[in-house]
């Protein structure tokens, strides 16, 4: 069951990612990215990271991508034109792509040997309570520093926007 779910959503994620690059219309690309994020959330869920799965949906799919789509709609961006020298690009890029995938496969194989089983389901470090405890005890300082960074970014955005008015 786990394996089938993993395969289904892995295929969906990769398919959406390829579609993201192939589409010419920005809205289609943005929605493919939403698809990638949704299937990634399911993969997190299969690994037992239920909190991170929910946050993935709430933050990335629900907030950031909505903002992307909002901006695309406001700017009324149309479909891009395909570049003219497609055939040449195809002939150069396809071998490069295969080389890259082969290299990545070799790297993954050497780093995570096949004898080590990927853990499905049994992993229990991902509940909301455990993530919260880790964040507020062991990783308190990085957590607070990140919040301050985000606060600074918000202040910067407000200052930049004020100049325009």
């Amino acid at each position, binding site marked *: 069951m786990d394996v089938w779910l993993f395969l289904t959503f892995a295929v969906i994620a990769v398919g959406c990612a390829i579609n993201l690059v192939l589409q010419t*219309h920005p*809205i289609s690309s943005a*929605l493919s990215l*939403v698809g990638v994020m949704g299937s990634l*959330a399911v993969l997190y869920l299969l690994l037992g990271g*239920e*909190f991170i799965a*929910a*946050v993935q*949906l*709430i933050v990335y*799919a*629900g*907030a950031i991508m*909505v*903002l992307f*789509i*909002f901006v695309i*709609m*406001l700017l009324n961006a149309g479909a891009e034109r395909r570049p003219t020298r497609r055939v040449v690009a195809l002939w150069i890029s396809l071998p490069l792509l295969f080389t890259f995938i082969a290299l990545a496969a070799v790297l993954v194989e050497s780093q995570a040997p096949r004898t080590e089983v990927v853990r499905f389901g049994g992993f229990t470090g991902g*509940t*909301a309570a455990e993530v919260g405890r880790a964040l507020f005890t062991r990783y308190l300082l990085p957590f607070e520093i990140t919040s301050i960074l985000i606060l600074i970014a918000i202040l910067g955005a407000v200052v930049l926007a004020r100049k325009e008015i």
Partner: protein
Amino acid sequence: MNFYVLSLIKTAIVALALLTALAYLQWVERKVLAHIQLRPGPYRVGPHGLLQPVADIIKLMTKEGLMPPGANLFFYLFAPFLAVTICLISIVVIPFGPRVELFGVQTNMGLTDLNIGVLFILAISSLGVYGVALGGWASNSKYSLLGCLRSAAQMISYELPLALALAAPLLLVNTLDLRRIVDAQGGFWFGLFPQWNVFAGPFPQIFSFLIFLIASFAETNRVPFDLPEAESELVAGFHTEYSSLTFAAFFMSEYANIVTVCCVATVLFLGGWQPLWPAAYGSNYVPALVHFAAAAVFFYHGAQALKTRMWDRFSFPVLGFMFLGLGVLFLIPFLQPVLIPLFWFLAKAGLLVFLFIWIRGTLPRFRYDQLMRFAWTFLFPVAVVNLLVTGLLVALTSK
């Protein structure tokens, strides 16, 4: 019993009940609005317009589905499908009642229980904006586009106070599992008054409840925040160009959203299926008495029917007998553990749905700048202060 068979049966029951309720919610809304405005409302199709939803469904199914020129066909058809799917998904984590045993089968009332039920609802509802935004954008119409931009901005803005208002009661119950949230609200003050989150110590969540309600009015695009479909400015907002079944899908998703929001409010703030006062003081007889009272009202009006509405002499007593039968069901001992929690849950959720309709009949619409200013300069700070005060009091009183 096999897990899959049991889940299938439960899903079928919930889906049938939900879809029927959605169809009839529209009838209820039209009737309540009509009575607020001193007119009879739908009256022609069936007794008191009771068959109106059926007629509407047939009408919508047989109408021609129009494609606006220049529309993005894929997204134009995908958007209503997305909207209706997303708003129906949230219902799977709502617990309708406690663990029960019926015909020798033990099961939880509700489709599933997640450890992260609250987060699941937040995640799904944050995806709800896609259906609206895509539908408005793909229609290739200025009214639809303006409607969908307004709606997206409004839903993003009001999601913040909504999430903050949800967080405060979670501090009291200390879990994200909706079933355990309801269980935690089961006690009674002095053995009499309910310990629902709106009344619970150390800090009653009445402010969170109000913030949640206000924000959910905006999330579901209802009056007084129905700017996305302000008919005087935008014809019908994001679904201006939709017709036939695609329009029906958007229409259904609006009502499904209301039902979901009311169920969530019931579970988080109003104690889910917990009764208003303990069973020791006879709260188990309330459902039967309410139904008997409704039956008595129907019999009285059937006897007093107007000369111009002779049909009522027949239809009202029939309804009266139906309610009498329902009331008797609540007195059968082996059905009681199932039906009585269900009654309390549906009564609370139903009252909230009625509140949604009532407010639509009472309040005027906000202006767009008022709506945004209200969200960011009033509702959001109040929600933050409420969360901080709750957190402080919980930290001070916890052992």
